[in-house]
């Protein structure tokens, strides 16, 4: 008796299936608009969260999908932030949308160059090289005071009103809708990227870096590509920060920023796109609340939370939600 033929999987359908928009996602994105109505005094914080979420999404592309750890991702965030500042202040290019794109491209160019170094190392050496490159850039920015303003940073960076109509108001309404809108658009882009055949090959590299080359995947080129894209995303996030706060300071390049985005992403869950957004919300809201009570000791709780996530909820909050849904019998 012949064994039954294995059911063929249509690759097109397998790739398209996860792209289907679920109703829960619509609810999620509509809920993100709630602060506009419910907490108008917290709109500045909400914009910060959207920016951090975009930054975490950028890290998710390389860490969550390609499995490349970075301890210096703030480098690209900082390049985007400073480039947007120079563009508006020094070079007189004050249109915000094109400013975002140009800043992202600037970060992507540096990301592309750095990616040639990144693919050469792995494990501890990768951690140290990304950390080292981040610190080097921070030191360089600190010394090039004529360009970056050094420790003082750059202030009073004005951009034109959005679409020629909406000025960045004092309450942060325009800034909130702007950052959230950019986050949403770039989220859609990231979704397409990770569900494409290219994204699939990245996940293959994450799971088994030795096997993929033998399947004919040019692994180093794939890593370089996603690293460049992630640098673009981080650059746009940095530029958003500059445009909405009208200033930029050295801390955009700091190691602390690199570490925080990693923590946000892990709390939310890596390799899920939504993880970065959820993690950024949790992290920044918790810091806002705890820091007013006891600024010094909030580190203790974030450390405890990290340990708890690693030990008990691998996959972060989004991973935990997925496991819960599977347990009650819903589609994961």
């Amino acid at each position, binding site marked *: 008796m012949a064994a039954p033929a294995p059911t063929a999987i249509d690759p097109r359908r397998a790739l398209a299936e996860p792209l289907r928009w679920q109703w829960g996602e619509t609810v999620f994105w509509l809920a993100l608009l709630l602060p506009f109505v419910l907490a108008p005094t917290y709109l500045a914080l909400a914009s910060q969260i959207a920016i951090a979420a975009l930054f975490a999404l950028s890290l998710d592309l390389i*860490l969550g999908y390609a499995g490349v*750890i970075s301890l210096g991702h703030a480098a690209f965030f900082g390049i985007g932030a400073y480039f947007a500042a120079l563009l508006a202040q020094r070079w007189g290019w004050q249109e915000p949308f094109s400013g975002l794109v140009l800043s992202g491209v600037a970060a992507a160019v540096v990301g592309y160059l750095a990616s040639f*170094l990144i693919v*050469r*190392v*792995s*494990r*501890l*050496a990768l*951690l*140290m*090289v990304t*950390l*080292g*490159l981040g*610190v*080097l850039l921070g*030191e*360089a920015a*600190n*010394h090039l005071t004529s360009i970056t303003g050094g420790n003082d940073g750059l202030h009073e960076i004005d951009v034109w009103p959005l679409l020629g109509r909406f000025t960045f108001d004092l309450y942060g309404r325009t800034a909130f809708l702007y950052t959230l809108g950019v986050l949403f658009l770039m989220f859609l882009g990231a979704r397409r990227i990770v569900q494409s055949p290219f994204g699939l090959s990245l996940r293959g590299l994450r799971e088994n870096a030795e096997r993929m080359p033998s399947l004919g995947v040019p692994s180093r080129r794939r890593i370089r590509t996603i690293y460049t894209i992630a640098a673009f995303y981080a650059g746009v996030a940095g530029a958003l920060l500059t445009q909405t706060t009208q200033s930029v300071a050295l801390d955009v390049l700091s*190691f602390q920023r690199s*570490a925080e985005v*990693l*923590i946000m992403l*892990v709390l939310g869950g*890596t390799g899920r796109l939504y993880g970065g957004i959820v993690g950024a919300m949790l992290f920044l809201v918790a810091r806002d609340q705890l820091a007013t009570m006891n600024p*010094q*000791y*909030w*580190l*203790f709780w*974030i*450390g*405890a*939370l*990290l*340990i708890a*996530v*690693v*030990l008990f909820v*691998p996959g972060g909050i989004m991973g935990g939600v997925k496991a819960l849904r599977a347990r009650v019998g819903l589609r994961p």
Partner: protein
Amino acid sequence: MLAHLLGVLFDGLAYGMLLFVLSVGLSVTMGLMGFVNLAHSAFAMLGGYLSVTLTQRLGVPFLATLPLAFVGIAALSTLFERLLYRRLYHAGELDQVLLTIGLVLMAVASCAFLWGTQQQQVDPPPYLFGYFSPFGIDLGFYRLFLVGVGAVIALGLVFGLERTRFGAKVRAAVDNQRMARGLGIDVNGVFALTFAVGSGLAGLGGALAINMVGLDPNFATKYLVFVLLVVSVGGLGSVGGTFAAAALLGISDVAGKYYLPEAGAFMIYAVMVALLLWRPAGLFGRR
């Protein structure tokens, strides 16, 4: 001029020996189990605070607190190894990094809570104060003491690893863990003991560091970077590599601060990145 140069070299060497004591334990344990333990510098910080508490509260002489810091931190680290680390030996390095970063954050906040954020100090015995100047070179007694301690520890470790039965087991486990298990070596036991000794050395380093670089709750994060630098440049699992990298880093850091103060940390990181791109396994690493 030459005397000044030699003086700077000596200061750098003393600083390098401090870095060696702080990092050698991590190099050996990471080489052995491949566990990325970023909390190593937190153990060092706790060793420092243990020494501070013993001298200030209980009046124990500073030199006597050094072995106590070693033993205390070795015992404490064994507890952590049993409760936390052992669960993650087979997890990815990201999980290990995150767990141990979590520990560092908790240690920083706890030390700030228990001892405050101010700089701590301890008093070494009077004969370790001051300096003497043969041929015009300023040699501080405490720094001489550090160089001596570093040399003794390096020799002790090399002897222990190369000449004893236990050291042979450690080397076998580093080279090929599965083969070592197959030969009946209790690799977990070997690791637990090595981990305790390595962390104890960190605790000793933390206590030695107080008189040289000070101690406050940011010690763990500040020296974490230096320790990782030494370990990655020296090569995992290599005592000699760690020694060379620590001396190199200590001398270039101190010399950089004397002669090129405006360059800041730039030189060290540039050299590290270049070295790691050239040899990703470190100067003396085998993998």
